[in-house]
Structure formats: structure tokens, C-alpha cells
């Protein structure tokens, strides 16, 4: 049986910022994500082209 050791310090976890249900919903909402797919790709391409 593994030594369970000291409690993992999780006090910080109680005070973190959590997403709203709407934010979580948008993360996998297909129409919104299709739009984000285009936007993020353009942002990344801009970053790459800036160096080239």
C-alpha cells in the first residue's frame, strides 16, 4: 500500500477563478468553435509570418 504522505496542499484551489457555465458551454459549442478555429489560425499564421 503506497504511503499516502502529507495532504496535498490544495488550499489555493479554494480561491481560484473558475469559469462560468456559459464559458464552459462555449468551449465545445460547434458554431462558436468553428469561428474560433478560423480566428486562432489567423492569429498564429500572423505570428509565423512576422518572423519569416
Amino acid at each position, binding site marked *: *500500500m*503506497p*504511503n*499516502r*504522505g*502529507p495532504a*496535498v*496542499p*490544495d488550499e*489555493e*484551489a479554494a480561491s*481560484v*477563478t*473558475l*469559469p462560468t457555465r456559459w464559458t*464552459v458551454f*462555449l*468551449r*465545445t459549442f*460547434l458554431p*462558436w*468553435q*468553428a469561428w*474560433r*478555429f478560423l480566428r*486562432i*489560425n489567423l*492569429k*498564429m*499564421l*500572423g*505570428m*509565423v*509570418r*512576422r*518572423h*519569416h
Partner: protein
Amino acid sequence: MSRVVVLGSGIAGHTAASFARRWLPRTETVTVVSPVDRYNWVPSNIWVGVGLMQPHQVTFPLAPVYERHGIEFVHGFARQIHPEGDAGDSRPFVAVERVAGGDGDFLRLPYDFLINATGPRLRFDMTEGLGPEANSMSVCTPEHAQLAARALDRAVERMRRGQRQRFVVGVGHGGCTCEGAAFEYIVNLEFELRARKVRELAEIVWITNEYELGDFGMAGMQMRRSGYLIPASIFTASLFAERGISWITRAHVRKVEPDRLSYETLDGGEAELGFDFAMLLPPFSGVGLRAFDRQGTEITDRLFQPNGFMRVDGDYTPRPFEEWSARDWPRTYQSPAYPNLFAAGIAFAPPHPISRPHTSPRGTVITPAAPRTGMPSAQIGRAVARSVVDMLRGAPRPTATASMAEMGAACVASAGANPFSGTAASMTVYPVVPDYERYPGYGRDMKRTFGEIGLAGHWIKILLHHMFIYKAKLRPGWPLIPE
């Protein structure tokens, strides 16, 4: 006829060799030396490590690709560099120990230009009990990742029998880098445990040498959101809390036993943590190349830092953190000792970490090393190839630059692989190394630094996987795909 020799066939070496071959006429020789005869798209090892991919999906044999494109391939370990040749012949050469020949089968490989892209040596030995041959898993190679996937399967089987399991993921030493890869693994692991319907029996713990979550060895980043500049630590903590992952920061793992690890923290504390499954990345060093002058006198310390990484055109003068500058970082990656010698990717020695260094009361340095993988590695490989080709054509000095303090990076960190319910964190950061003179305050251009989590990131991650493997296979149109 000239010969460009590239040591290493990872992201930096393969990119450098591919562009050198493209830009040089076939009368010139491009030779790649590597002990590994398969290309590995390392970022996807994460998915091998959770059992979603097999090693053959993230690797392919290099020899047919090189044969098709006229790149000579030597399957062996580069052991020694002789930048002045030897007493009998003044042409520089590399001593290569061939894999097929066994010990002592050395090949003398002359070069006109040498690009050292040997990548890291995985230093599991720096922490007692660390590594797949001892007590913890890794995803550094496809083989390691496959072992991790099998260990995960066994843990899931135990959970299906009702046993609770503790998973510890992170880095196995205070001086590690690549925290981003370990981060990807832990969130993918959590997602996979949910998909296998055993999540409620799992406790998942992140252990890291970062001072704050989200540092990733590049001093973290700030992102604009709702009128605020929010640090990455907030986003990372949020992601972990949302998924029920607890964390231990500022930790140096000292010892890993079969069912527990002991660690030291920056405040001088010591603790033990039991586990049933541990995936802990190792620290890196250079691969141990040695160098000799014409008389046979060893000059390794002239070419390399004590950690084995190659000194290039950076400023390596030891200075306190407050005096570090973006200008310390190398731009051309040319060795100051020999103008026909370059380093690319992990093989070059960073002048110092990017994150503020911290030392525990016992004197243990607990600071992430500077990451230089993925997109920066490829961009450095391409810039070095450009300089080498131009110098072969008569340019007196390197013509291309790729300073990490002048380049941005785009990163997509998988947080769960499913085409409809998966997510990934998409980030861009500019520049990689903060430049506090150009961008007072945070050191970065806030218009070009952003991050968000969503399914779109997962689609991009899948797209990048296929696109970069296509590019690495040098299929038609490969130069059009950016690094």
C-alpha cells in the same frame, strides 16, 4: 564539393538538413548523423502516453525520405568534433560511432560546415529512482510513452476493481524544462480517466519546479481578458481546479521509489508523496560531445558549457537576474570559437534561464530551465541552414537570425483528445524571451500574446500533427508549411 554535416534528426536538425538540401545544388553534400533512424513528431508523444496513438503514428523511417531527397544519412552517434582536423589532415571532421558496427566502429566524417542539433540527453540519473527503467514513467520518446500507456492501462484495471489510485505528473528534478509537455500529459490523463469512466477513483497531483503555475520555464505570460492583463497562473490554476487536479509548486524531486517520491520545496521543507502511477519528466543536458584541437588536446570546455550544451553567440557572462537582457540571447547560433560550427534547437546553450532563478535554503536550485523546443527549434534550424548556405556561397558571416528574444511562438497544448468534446489551450507569445526594454512592464507585446481554451484548439492540434508530419516527410509543397 562541400559537405554540410548535421548532427541530429530531431525537429531542429531535420529542418536544418531539409532546407540546406533545398538551397544547395546537388554537387554539395548534406549529411545527417543520428543514432535514431526514425523521425519522431515529439509533441504527439503525449497521445501515445495515454494510449490514443501508437508509436508508428508519431514516427516514420528517415532513410527513405533522405534517399529520395539526396540527403546522406549516417546511422550513428557523433562522439567527437575535431574542428581543426588532426596532425595528418587539417580538414575538420566528426568522429561518428556507427550503430550497426558496435563499439569502436568509428567513421571519420569531414565537413565544411557543422550544425550541432543533437538535442538533449535525458538525465534520469540526476534523480535517484527516476525514469522508465526505475520507478516512474516518461513521454520523452515514443517507447517511453508506450510504457506509460501500458502502466496507465494497469492503473485503470485496478480502478475497475474498485481501488483508488493516485497519479502524480510533473517534473522529476528542480532544474527540469518542458513543463508544458507534462502539463499536456496531466490534462490528457484526466480527460482519458473520465472517458474510461474511472475518474471518481483517481486523485491527480501536479508536481513542478515552477515558482507559480503557468510559468512553463518562460516566466509565464499575461493575457488580455475583460479589461485586465491576467497572468497564466490564474488560467492554469483555474483549469486544474475545474478538473479536480491539485498541485505542488516550487518542488525539487529528490528520490523516486516504487510507490512514493520525496521532494524538497523552495522554503526548505521536505515531504513524501505516495503514488500508484507517476509520469515525471527528466532534466536535460547536452549529449556529451567532446572536442579536440589539431594536436589532440581536448578543447571541450572551449566549445561547450559545463552542462554539455554548445556555446554560441549569446552573452554567457554570469550576471544577477536584474541585469539579464534580451540582448544576451543568441541570434545566429554560430560558435564564437569556429565560424563553421553552429548549434540549433536544444543543443545550444541558453545564456541563462528565462524565469527568475530561486534557490532553497539547502542551496538547491529550483528553477525551470529555458524551453527551446518545437517552433523555436525549427525556426532556429532554418535560420542556421540559411546562414550556412550563404557562407558556402561566400558570405563572410551568418546572414539569418532567429533570436528567441525576437521571435514569437504559437503553442497548442492538448487538454483532451476528442473531436467533439476535447479541448486544447491555444497560445501565442511574443517574444518568447521577454524584452523589458522594448515592452516595458511585462516584456511582451500584449497584442500578440493571447491564450484560450476550447475545442478549436484540439482541431488545430490534430491539423498540426498531420501537417508537420507531412512536412517532415518532405512531401510536395513542404516548404510552404511554416515552421
